[in-house]
C-alpha cells in the first residue's frame, strides 16, 4: 500500500477530534462536529491512522471510541499524564497506599473478570459497599493466610494498613472525617469524577457513582497490565530476597 501525502485538512480534523477527546464535557451528540469526526474515525481507516499518529506525537494513545467519545490514555512521561501524587499534595506513604488501593478496588469491584472489561454496561459504585467489599476481601485473605508465627514479626501488608484505618470517623456535622476509609473512598470517587472516569449518580441515591467507559478502557488497556507487571516484579524480588 503506497501512502499518499497527508491531506492538511485531515490533519486539522484529526487535531480537532483529539481536542474534543481532551475536553471534559464534550459530548458527541447527533449532528455535532464531534460526532461527525468520531463516526469518521470509526469508519475511515486512513483518518483513523492519521488521528492515532497525531495522538502518538502528543504523548497520547487512542484506547477506543465508545458512545461517549474518544478515550485517550496518556504516556506516563507525556504532557497529559496524571499522577496520583498530583491530585493531593503532601500525602504520606500510607495515605498513598490507601488511595491507590481504593482505585484498584473500584476496578476489581466493577470488573472482577476479563469479560467485564469488554462489557459496555456501566457499573455503579457505592461508597459504603466498596468499603465492605475491601474489608471483606481482607478478612477473606486472613482466613486463608493465617499469620506466620515462625517468621517472628511479619512485615505490615497493604491489607493491614487498610484494616487498621477505621471505617468511619464522623464529624460533629455527621459527615466523614479525614482519616477514615469511607472518607478516602469519597475522595477517590471525587477524583474519578474530576477525571471524567465516573459520574455522580444522584438519581440512584447519595454516595452512588457511575463509572464511565473511559475508566473501563483505561483499566483494561493501560492500568491493569502495567500494574500486573509491577506486581510480578515485586513478588519476584520478594521470593528471591
Amino acid at each position, binding site marked *: 500500500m503506497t501512502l499518499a501525502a497527508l491531506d492538511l485538512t485531515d490533519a486539522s480534523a484529526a487535531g480537532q477530534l483529539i481536542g474534543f477527546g*481532551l475536553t471534559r464535557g464534550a*459530548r458527541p*451528540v*447527533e449532528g455535532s462536529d464531534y460526532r461527525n469526526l468520531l463516526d469518521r474515525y*470509526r469508519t475511515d*481507516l486512513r483518518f483513523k491512522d492519521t488521528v492515532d499518529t497525531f495522538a502518538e506525537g502528543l504523548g497520547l494513545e487512542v484506547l477506543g*471510541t*465508545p*458512545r461517549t*467519545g474518544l478515550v485517550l*490514555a496518556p504516556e*506516563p512521561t507525556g504532557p*497529559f499524564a*496524571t499522577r*496520583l501524587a498530583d*491530585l493531593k499534595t503532601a500525602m504520606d506513604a500510607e495515605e*498513598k*497506599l490507601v*488511595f*491507590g488501593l481504593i482505585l*484498584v478496588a473500584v*476496578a*476489581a469491584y*466493577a*470488573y*472482577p*473478570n*476479563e469479560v467485564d*472489561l*469488554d462489557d459496555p*454496561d*456501566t*457499573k*455503579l459504585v457505592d461508597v459504603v459497599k466498596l468499603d465492605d467489599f475491601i474489608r471483606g*476481601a481482607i478478612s477473606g*485473605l486472613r482466613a486463608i493466610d493465617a499469620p506466620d508465627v515462625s517468621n517472628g514479626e511479619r*512485615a505490615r*501488608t*497493604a*491489607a*493491614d*494498613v487498610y484494616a487498621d484505618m477505621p471505617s468511619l470517623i464522623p464529624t460533629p*456535622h455527621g459527615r466523614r*472525617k*479525614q482519616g477514615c476509609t469511607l472518607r478516602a473512598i469519597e475522595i477517590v470517587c471525587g477524583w474519578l469524577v474530576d*477525571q471524567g*472516569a465516573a459520574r455522580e449518580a444522584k*438519581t*440512584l441515591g447519595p454516595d452512588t457513582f*457511575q463509572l464511565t467507559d473511559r475508566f473501563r478502557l483505561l*483499566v483494561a*488497556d*493501560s492500568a*491493569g*497490565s*502495567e*500494574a*500486573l507487571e509491577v506486581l510480578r516484579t*515485586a*513478588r519476584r524480588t520478594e521470593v528471591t530476597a
Partner: protein
Amino acid sequence: MAENEDGGGAGLPPLVSPAADATARGRWRALVLTDPIHKLVRNAAHAGVDDDVYDLRQLAMAAVDLAVASMGFAREALLEEVVDALAVLAARMQSGEEHAPRWRDVAQLVIKGLLNDAHEQRRFSYTFADLTDPGATRFDTYSFRLLSLRDTEYGPVLIASDQAVMLFLDGLDVDIEDAEAALAHVLQRQLDDERFDAAVRTATMAERTSLGMSAMLTDLLDATSRDVRSHDWLVDVPDRLGRARKHVAGRIAEEDKTLEHVQNGLDGDVSPAVRVASGQIVDLLRRAKRIHLDLHDRLVGARDVFLTAQVRQRLARRRRLRLLAIGEELFTPILALPAEPATAVVETFADRSLGVRVPRLARFDDIVDLLWAPPRQREVAEPDVEDPGDEDPTEDIQRYPEAVLRTARDVLALTRTAPLRLSALLDAAAAVDPSVVDGAVDDVVELVLLSALWAFAPDISGDDEEQAGEVDLLASGLAAGDDGTALNHPLASGADLLVTADSPASPAGELAAALSSEGGRR
C-alpha cells in the same frame, strides 16, 4: 427420574409426558425471568418498603416497559426519566405529601433491583438441571440481565436485554420474528371474520412485539458500530442483520396491505363501534410501521458499518492481551503484599487509570490569589448554616423585646436627675412591674447592668457582637466611674459604679428613634 421410570416396576405410565419434557427448558426460562422481580420485592422488605403499599412488581414492569419502548427510537430512556416516571407511579400508589420522600426511594429500589445491585450488578444466574438424557443429568447455567446501565452522549440510559423484552412480551420465550409474523396472520383472520375487538387486542400485541424486536436489534446495531471485538462477526452478526433486514422489509409491505384492508372496510357503511375499533387498529398499525421503517433505515446503514468494521478487524490487531481477572490476579495479591511494594503497584495503577489531565498554564492572577488566600482546610466539613428564620424584627428571639428596652431606658433615665450607684439602678430594675415587660424582669436587669458596664468600659474591639446593639446605644449618653466603692448586690459583684448621664437630653430623646430603627442583637 428416568431411573425411577425404568425401575418403578409397578407398570405405571411415566408421570412426566415426553411433550412436557421437551418444553421444560423453555417453560423453566419463562419462570426464571420473573425471579429477579420476586427477589427485589423480598429485598424491599429489608429496606422498609411495604409490598402491600407499593406494588413493586408493577413498578418493575413499568421500568422494563419504558426501557424497551424507548429503545426503538433515536434516544434510549434516560435513567433519570425512568426514575422520575416510577416515582410518579409510586405517588399514585401512596398519595399524600407526607409520603413524598418515599416515592423516589421506592423508584430507586426497583431500578437497583432490576440492575441486580445487590450482587455488584452481575448477571442473574440460575442453574437448570437438564434431564433429557436418561443416562446423565447435566447442569446448565442460565445467566441474563434485565436492565443495564450504559453511558451515552446524553447521559446514563437504561437498556433492556433480550430477556427483558421477553418479559415485556408476557414472559414467553419465543422467537420474536416468528411471533410477529404469527400475530400478523391472526390479525388478518380476525379482520376477515370481522372480530374487531379481538383484532384491536392482536394489533396491540403486534405493536408491542415490534417494539420488542426493535429493542433487541437496536442493541445489536449499537454493538456493531461501537465495538467489533465483543461480537461474533463471522457468523452471528451478519446472519442476524441479514435476517432482520428481510423480516423488516417484509413486515412493512404486509402492514401496508393490512392498513389498506382496514381502511377500505371503513369506506363502506359501518357501525360506530366498528369505526372506533378500526380507528384504533389503524393507529396501532401505523405506529408499528413507523418502528419498522425506522429500524429498516438503521439496518441498511449498519451494513456499511459492518463491512468497514470487518476490514478494520482484519487490519487492526488487538494491541495487548487484556488482563485476566482484576479481582483475583491484581487486587487480592496486592492486599497480601508488604506495604512498600504494594504502594509501587497501586501507584502505577493509579497513574494510568486516572487518564489525561490537560496542563493549564499557571496565571499570575491565580498564583497571587493562592498566596493571599488563607490555607484551605478542605477536609473540615462546612458548618451547617443556621436557618435565619423570619426577618421580622419584632419576632427576633435574639433581640430584647421592645417593652424591656423601654423599661431599661426609663430606669437609666433616673441618672439624668442625679448620679446613681449601679446597685441602686439594679434595685430599680429588679423592682419594675413584671406585667409591663411580660415577665422579663431579668432581661431589664441584665440590660441595665450591661449598659452601666458599657458606659464604664465600652467594648471597642467589636468582635463580640453580643455586646453591641441596644447596649451601646443605651449607654451612649452615660458615663460611669469607679470610686472604689464595692458592689454588694445579689445580681453582680465588683465595683459599685457611679453612673451619670452626660447630658440631660440623653439617653432617651433621639436615641429612642435610633434604637427602634436599628435593632441590634443581644
